[in-house]
């Protein structure tokens, strides 16, 4: 299906192509083989990730989370065809955003993430590079290649931890305002018990990395970390 075409984007694990049909543009996502992987591993991997991504995209799309609408899937060639979103990565524009706009985006991201988690779906790679914003200020979450189903609060917290860390790497001075607005949107979507569990786990995960001096003291300082 994609032989001989030139990808418009070469991602970490898949190539993205445009397909223009009757004046509408679609995205073709093809998971590629990697020469550094064991061949057996490589096949297993691409098959599973394509299957889960397609399933999750359709469930989220039908639940009103802004994601690209899935059009078709071909598991034998590791291909998903989906809606084209005309937007830019938040990663590219975040530094130039004023606080109001940043807050609105963050709140939307929080809302979608909350709705996703309530459906027991985690994204698995929620970074600023996987969030698109459009001219009409709509926010889309993309790339569900690492997503999955889980009842475990750990997976939801990891999503938020990754988002936070990506902010820390790209725009460290905007973390506070972004996260405050994010939580505002998130708390509107999930039950309060779940909100509490997720927030607690996010704090715990941040203290889990290697050589975190706070880890030693966290028992005594826990109250201070409560925002």
């Amino acid at each position, binding site marked *: 299906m994609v032989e001989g075409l030139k990808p418009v984007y070469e991602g970490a694990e898949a190539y993205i192509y445009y397909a223009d049909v009757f004046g509408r543009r679609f995205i073709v996502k093809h998971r590629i083989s990697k020469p550094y992987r064991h061949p057996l591993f490589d096949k297993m991997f691409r098959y599973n990730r394509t299957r889960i991504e397609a399933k999750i995209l359709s469930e989220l799309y039908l639940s009103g989370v802004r994601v690209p609408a899935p059009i078709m899937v071909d598991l034998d060639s590791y291909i998903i065809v989906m809606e084209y979103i005309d937007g830019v990565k938040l990663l590219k524009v975040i530094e130039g955003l004023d606080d109001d706009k940043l807050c609105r985006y963050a709140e939307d991201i929080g809302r979608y993430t909350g709705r996703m988690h309530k459906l027991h779906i985690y994204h698995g790679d929620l970074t600023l590079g996987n969030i698109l914003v459009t001219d009409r200020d709509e926010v889309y979450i993309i790339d569900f290649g690492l997503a999955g189903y889980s009842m475990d609060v750990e997976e939801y917290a990891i999503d938020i931890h990754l988002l936070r860390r990506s902010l820390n790497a790209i725009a460290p001075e905007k973390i506070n305002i972004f996260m405050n607005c994010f939580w505002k949107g998130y708390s509107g979507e999930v039950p309060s018990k779940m909100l509490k569990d997720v927030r607690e786990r996010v704090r715990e995960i941040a203290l889990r990395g290697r050589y975190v*001096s706070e880890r030693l003291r966290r028992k005594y300082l826990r109250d201070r970390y409560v925002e």
Partner: protein
Amino acid sequence: MPRIIVLGIESTSHTFGVGIVEYVDGDVRIIANEKDVYRPVKGGIHPREAALHHVNTSYIVLRRALDRAGVSIRDVNAVAVSLGPGLGPCLRVGASLARFLSSYYGKPLIPVNHAVAHVEIGKFLYKFDDPLVIYVSGGNTLIAIQRRGRYRILGETLDLPLGNLLDTFTRETGLAPPYVVDGKHAIDMCAEKGSKFIPLPYTVKGSDLSFSGLLTHALRRARELREGEGLGDICLSLRETAFNMLVEVAERSLVLTGKKQVLLVGGVAANKVLSRKLSVMASMHGAVYAGTPPEYAGDNGAMIAYTGLLGFLHGLTVEPEKAYVRQRWRIDEVDLPWLRG
């Protein structure tokens, strides 16, 4: 600019090292890099035994480094020391020696973060200015970039470091010690006898890694070998799984940041299989790849001396009485003036 000579002391873990660098007219040369490594007869690193080893060899290594460089301690302009992260008893040996040299001979003392030093020596050797850094050793596994005066971590292990995973597996299965023979890790020698790929737990969370489940499962499969399976197959599968996890998160970070240089540093950088995988991955994205050569990949004094020189040129010094060791000093906690701007 006159000649500046910086002596660096490394003692965070099994290696006691002394390196000396020379700076003349903007040119840096490593003029000595001597070390002595504590090798356990059985088991892993015993912190007290390693520290005793450092005490017993420190003055010999120091003497050797000065002789090799052809300088006297009085010619040295500053003393740099690795104050963490690492094993407390080991760190204290290096810190004590550095504090003594600094106060007795009146030399400025420069605190160096061990992880930063691994990165800086790699950048220096390959003239990289802004790489995606992959730091893998017995005590660390992380992916970082430099931004606004610090190294920022994009992904790291949530439990075991990669080097620790390989060491523990080979130790528990009786393949090690010795962990490394002729630059080859016990896991590689074992994997050469394997041919089958056995699916093992693969845990990537965004750009974070978790190796503990992989270790537990691999050890169980090694204890209860199935029909037609050998330990070699487990070694091969364990190594493939662990390395692929690391390469995957590195690739993810490379695409996210769009860096054009990929640098592998730390003790595990000496592993040729990992280095080859990363090199293939980097070239797929048009990035230049470099893996630190073994002499500077493992812990060494030269990297401390070089990073100490950078600190010295930016006026980063510490009073000897305030030069405490920090066992859990994260790479992303250190402000580095040369990364600003």
